[in-house]
């Protein structure tokens, strides 16, 4: 059946058993790509003509921001799938995506602020991108909070999915904010539709870092989701068998 894969994808047990075999490869892949990308970026790329060596924070900051935004879509889409098809696994993925997204947003804001000091002369500025990034953090925190205050799991999942979906409006605003209200944050240097304004010597290590963060995100999401599966499926016999065997 053509839809069989989709239903299997919704099975927590299938996900748990499948990902057990993926984990070592994911860890090895993430680590090696990140180490190469980061060392290349920090030590083997030329200095930025305007910003000096502080620009090297880009190899930490920009991929974190990319994943903070992409992770929001992951959370919202998982929530939507859970609402529409009433599947268990997507809601677990949605809940797991919230703390990861929040942490990546904090990382983006923290490294951005450190980068801002030598570059803009201030740790914080009420720049449009900064403000909408802060709103993103509050959206993630809102989902985490809603999960913990709702008395029923079903209600919490639905409320979080709705909040996550409403908040998606924020993501394209963050993406376009540097063009719409240009103040301090530099505009994007990597573009999909026209030629990028970043030099290829800086582009390739940055690309590696973005790939590494994507792998990292997948890894963290799988780990949190596996915990959530054991938590929510605790009464099933396969989870109890698994606990006794491990």
């Amino acid at each position, binding site marked *: 059946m053509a839809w069989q894969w989709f239903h299997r994808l919704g099975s927590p047990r299938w996900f748990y058993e499948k990902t057990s075999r993926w984990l070592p490869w994911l860890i090895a892949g993430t680590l090696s790509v990140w180490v190469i990308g980061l060392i290349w970026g920090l030590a083997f790329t030329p200095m930025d003509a305007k910003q000096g*060596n502080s620009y090297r924070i880009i190899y930490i900051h920009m991929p974190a921001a990319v994943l903070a935004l992409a992770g929001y879509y992951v959370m919202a889409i998982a929530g939507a799938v859970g609402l529409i098809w009433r599947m268990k696994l997507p809601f677990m993925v949605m809940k797991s995506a919230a703390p990861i997204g929040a942490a990546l947003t904090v990382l983006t804001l923290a490294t951005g602020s*450190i980068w801002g000091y030598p570059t803009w002369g201030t740790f914080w500025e009420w720049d449009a991108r900064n403000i909408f990034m802060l709103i993103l953090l509050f959206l993630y925190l809102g989902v985490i909070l809603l999960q913990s205050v709702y008395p029923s799991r079903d209600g919490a999942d639905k409320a979080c999915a709705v909040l996550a979906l409403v908040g998606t409006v924020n993501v394209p605003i963050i993406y376009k904010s540097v063009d719409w209200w240009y103040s301090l944050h530099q505009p994007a240097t990597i573009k999909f539709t026209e030629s990028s304004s970043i030099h290829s010597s800086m582009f390739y290590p940055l690309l590696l870092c973005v790939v590494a963060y994507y792998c990292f995100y997948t890894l963290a999401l799988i780990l949190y989701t596996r915990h959530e599966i054991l938590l929510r499926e605790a009464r099933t016999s396969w989870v109890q068998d698994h*606990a006794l065997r491990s």
Partner: protein
Amino acid sequence: MPDFKFTSLNDFLLMSGHGIYVWSSVAIALVILGALIVHPLLLHKRQIKQLKKRAAQTRAVTTNDSH
């Protein structure tokens, strides 16, 4: 092949005065990303332990019942 852009290791660490910003960013990234791996693993471990305990308890109850 790109070459090392600093004259010495010391130069690499100092980054002409910007080292403190770059290296503190790297440190924060390591802490936050590391936490995102360690935290779910700890939760997972605790949950397995709890499931084992619960299984032991139910086994104890059922053996008591049979007496």
